[in-house]
């Protein structure tokens, strides 16, 4: 983080905000210019929130804020005050995999995995609204998720598989039973 000259310490006073992250309430002191990304990743330790570009172009930092997919690099922390945030860490109970994660493993979509937290949450945002999406709808929903390793075609397969799991009532899987 940047080094703030002593004379500027009072210029940007801390603001206390409350956040519910993955079902748990937090009170955090934030600077007015800090982003939701900075707070989640560096202050609360949710390192599943990745910073790729820092300017809305890559989708690595997306989280669900009050149910909506947002780039946490372009949301000021003070704006998130009082909201409910879901990061990839909160997707499934401890020791379990969410159907989306299982489907991504089953389709061998994972390469380096850097884009995955964002991809997973973008898929969640899609399936929450549309339990049976078409290829076109999947492509639009994932259009902002850049994957340097190029797993794009497998994402489409994985979304369909995840949708199927969820329709069959299989939302969570044991982590130990997962392939990958």
């Amino acid at each position: 983080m940047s080094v703030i000259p002593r004379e500027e310490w009072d210029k940007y006073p801390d603001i206390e905000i409350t956040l519910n992250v993955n079902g748990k309430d937090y009170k955090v002191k934030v600077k007015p210019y800090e982003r939701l990304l900075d707070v989640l990743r560096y202050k609360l330790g949710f390192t599943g929130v990745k910073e790729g570009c820092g300017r809305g172009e890559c989708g690595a930092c997306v989280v669900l804020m009050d149910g909506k997919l947002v780039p946490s690099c372009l949301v000021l922390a003070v704006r998130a005050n009082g909201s409910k945030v879901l990061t990839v860490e909160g997707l499934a109970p401890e020791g379990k995999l969410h159907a989306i994660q299982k489907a991504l493993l089953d389709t061998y979509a994972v390469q380096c995995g850097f884009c995955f937290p964002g991809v997973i949450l973008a898929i969640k945002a899609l399936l929450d609204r549309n339990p049976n999406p078409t290829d076109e709808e999947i492509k639009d929903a994932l259009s902002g998720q850049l994957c340097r390793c190029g797993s794009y075609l497998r994402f489409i397969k994985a979304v369909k598989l995840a949708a199927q799991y969820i329709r069959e009532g299989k939302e969570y899987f044991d982590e130990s039973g997962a392939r990958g």
Partner: protein
Amino acid sequence: MVICIPRFNVYIPKDVSDALNALSQRKDLIPMGGGSDLLVLIRSGIVKADTVLDLWPLRKELAYIKRENGTVRIGALTTVSELCESDLIKDVRYAGLADVCKKFSTPFIRNIATVGGNVGAAHPLSDIALMLLVLNGKVKLLSKNGEREVNIAKFFKGKRRTVRNHDEIIAEVSFTETPPNSSTAFIKFDRRWGHAMGYVLVGAYMQLRDNIIKDVRIAFDSTGNPYPERVWTTEEFLKGKEFSDELIKQALNNVLPKEMKRITDYRASAEYRLDLSKVLLRRALLKIKSRIEGGG
């Protein structure tokens, strides 16, 4: 690790009147809608911000799409997602707005980007602003001292510069409902589908009766100035004439190039952009005709 993060304060107003009061008293406030444009500019050092005025709390008052008494009114803090999920864009007359939605950035940007911010950004690649030009839209500006409406064709002054005074906020954009035998189209051309900026953007509105062009409005991302503008001479040339391949050919070859100056940059040459402008305008007009006649 030292990262250079621009520092600024944020003023969070309670409501519209609090925001307007603050703007009238303080010279250091920069209004922010979704921040999808402004925060990027601040972070890259293009805009220096002392204090950002966060307009998000004004969504209580300024996020809506209303159709009353023959006018469509869109609150400035309506998000692009809200616009794109609305019934308005299902109306075939506003199919051009549906075209915008198909190509507007990505779902997560659409969730934060606002309609007012698109107009406020005053950028050649402001898709919604471009469509408002062809819908003959108005921008409502609100200040502590009252309100005024500016035709969007007179709203831009330069790249990222508008006629908005420091103490004003953009409160609403509006346009008169267009007649039944009319429609719109928007084309953004790029090498890629998703997440595209576009080498050339064109928006058009046309009203046809018995194949006669009763009315037409056309706007491009740029015709010489660094903001979207209408091509008035081309519009005048087409108006009142019978829609035909020959007429469009004449407009594209003899009229449009005279009122359009294109630039060369790292993305495309001026020559290519002009050629593309002609091709895309022809496609847009044909698309509108087919939409009026019941096609897609």
